[in-house]
């Protein structure tokens, strides 16, 4: 079967691989995001994708070479990574309150994205490339190369967490104590930022910049709702991520009029609600 071939009706193998990679990578990182209470950071990084796409749309008006389908994603990826490092810098050095830094990056990039879309519409009289998919995601034309890139990012997340797990946990538990006990806290901090940014880049393509944050929060929270054993939390988070992304993809493949991003997020939310109800029942 070819990478781009169809399985399970309308869903391609490439889309499945992308969904599974996204589900696993987001689930692992979501545990750290919840531990560090970084949900707002994920929001800031993911929304900056819109700013990067906006840059591509304005460049497309000036240079025809940028008037291509790949350009908004490429610049969104660059913008996500730069924003992640920027937020990471401000939140670590304390030069600016972390919340304020995220707020500034978030509103600036979203405002720029909408402004660029307006300018593009005024000049070209049609919506720019990837406008809707950047906002809400799209699975329909996921290529084999994109699926492989997604798998590579997922592999990188798994590898880095496997190699530096104890340092990351130490940092997430107590950054100051980690630093003064000899952990290279700065390295861990920026590593997590970059891994989150790369995962967001995959997610923006599939779920959209508005909703990708949910994938960096819901699996981790669900895991901690079910158990407080570390391995158990990661296992439940990964299962939640996979059920959300792959399940959402299959629903989208069956009813194509349903946008993939909202479907994936709502499936994940459903899993979380089940876990929450079980937690409440067990608690009483």
């Amino acid at each position, binding site marked *: 079967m070819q990478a781009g071939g169809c399985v399970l009706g309308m869903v391609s193998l490439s889309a499945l691989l992308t969904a599974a990679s996204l589900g696993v990578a987001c689930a692992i990182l979501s*545990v750290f995001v919840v*531990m560090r209470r970084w949900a707002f950071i994920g929001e800031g990084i993911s929304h900056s994708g819109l700013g990067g796409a906006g840059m591509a749309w304005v460049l497309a008006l000036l240079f025809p070479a940028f008037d291509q389908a790949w350009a908004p994603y490429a610049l969104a990826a660059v913008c996500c990574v730069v924003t992640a490092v920027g937020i990471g810098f401000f939140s670590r050095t304390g030069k600016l309150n972390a919340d304020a830094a995220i707020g500034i990056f978030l509103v600036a990039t979203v405002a720029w994205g909408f402004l660029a879309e307006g300018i593009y519409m005024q000049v070209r009289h049609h919506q720019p490339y990837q406008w809707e998919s950047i906002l809400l995601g799209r699975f329909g034309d996921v290529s084999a190369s994109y699926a492989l890139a997604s798998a590579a990012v997922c592999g990188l997340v798994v590898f880095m967490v496997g*190699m*530096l797990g*104890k*340092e990351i*946990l*130490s940092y997430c*538990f*107590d950054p*100051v*104590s*980690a*630093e*003064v*006990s*000899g*952990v*290279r806290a700065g390295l861990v901090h920026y590593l997590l930022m970059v891994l989150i940014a790369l995962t967001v880049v995959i997610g923006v393509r599939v779920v959209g910049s508005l909703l990708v944050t949910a994938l960096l929060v819901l699996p981790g929270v669900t*895991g*901690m*709702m079910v*158990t*407080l*054993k*570390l391995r*158990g*939390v990661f296992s439940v988070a990964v299962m939640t991520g996979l059920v959300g992304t792959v399940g959402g993809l299959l629903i989208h493949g069956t009813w194509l009029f349903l946008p993939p991003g909202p479907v994936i997020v709502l499936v994940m939310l459903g899993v979380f609600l089940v876990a929450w109800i079980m937690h409440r029942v067990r608690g009483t």
Partner: protein
Amino acid sequence: MALIQIEHLDFDYGGQAVLKHIDLTVPDGSTVGVIGPNGGGKTTLMKLLLGLIEPTRGSILIDGVRPREATQRGDVVGYLPQNPRVPGHFPMNVRQVVRLGLVGKTGMLRAFKRGDTDFADHLIERVGLVDLAETPVGSLSGGQLQRVFIARALAARPKVLLLDEPTTGIDASGQQRFVEFLEELKKELGLTVVLVSHDLRSVAAVADRIACLNVTLHYHDVPERMPRELAASMFGCDLEAMGISRGHACGDPGCCEHVDHGAVVFTPVTGRVIR
């Protein structure tokens, strides 16, 4: 031999002097308490000792190297943060958290050594939490959590233990247990201890030397007796705020027989402070 040597230390923030002319020597195996009012520079001094900030002028040496290098070694400095708290849903148990104290010493891409994990397990037993070793840390009480953090700080067998306001938020009986426990650990592990606090009672109960910090380090060798006016000027605040209620900071009812009215008397051998 001095394990910590601070010489001619100044620290300015925003053009304002936070610490001025600090000289302090902490001998190996001693316990030095740093007391002073809020805003007197205790937290800044702690950050300087931890290598989190650099002095404007002067130097600090811990075990012969700068604080940043000392902390990066992973087995020189142990640190107990002020009022440690953990979210209730944090998915790590007591044993896992104590072993986090070994991460810096072990280094990246290496597994913990068996001897180190055995020592961490011994510390869990030593702090009286062996029955709770598999319990999530988020479900522990404040006193239990503090013992977890002490075990984590000691897991790498550091030479120096830095304690930041260790008795804040702990009730009187818990403070007494903490003092006894710290004494035992100090003897057992041969630790040098530096603790900062605004609570003179808790410092006096464990320290064999007391440093009084209010921007400048006014005094650091414990005298036998000190005029009340001098003590007040050293602390720069109401003595009752420092834990001396009605001029008395001793928990031992028999110790006040030798009270010399009008003076604060430090008895360094027992670590008591009486008036």
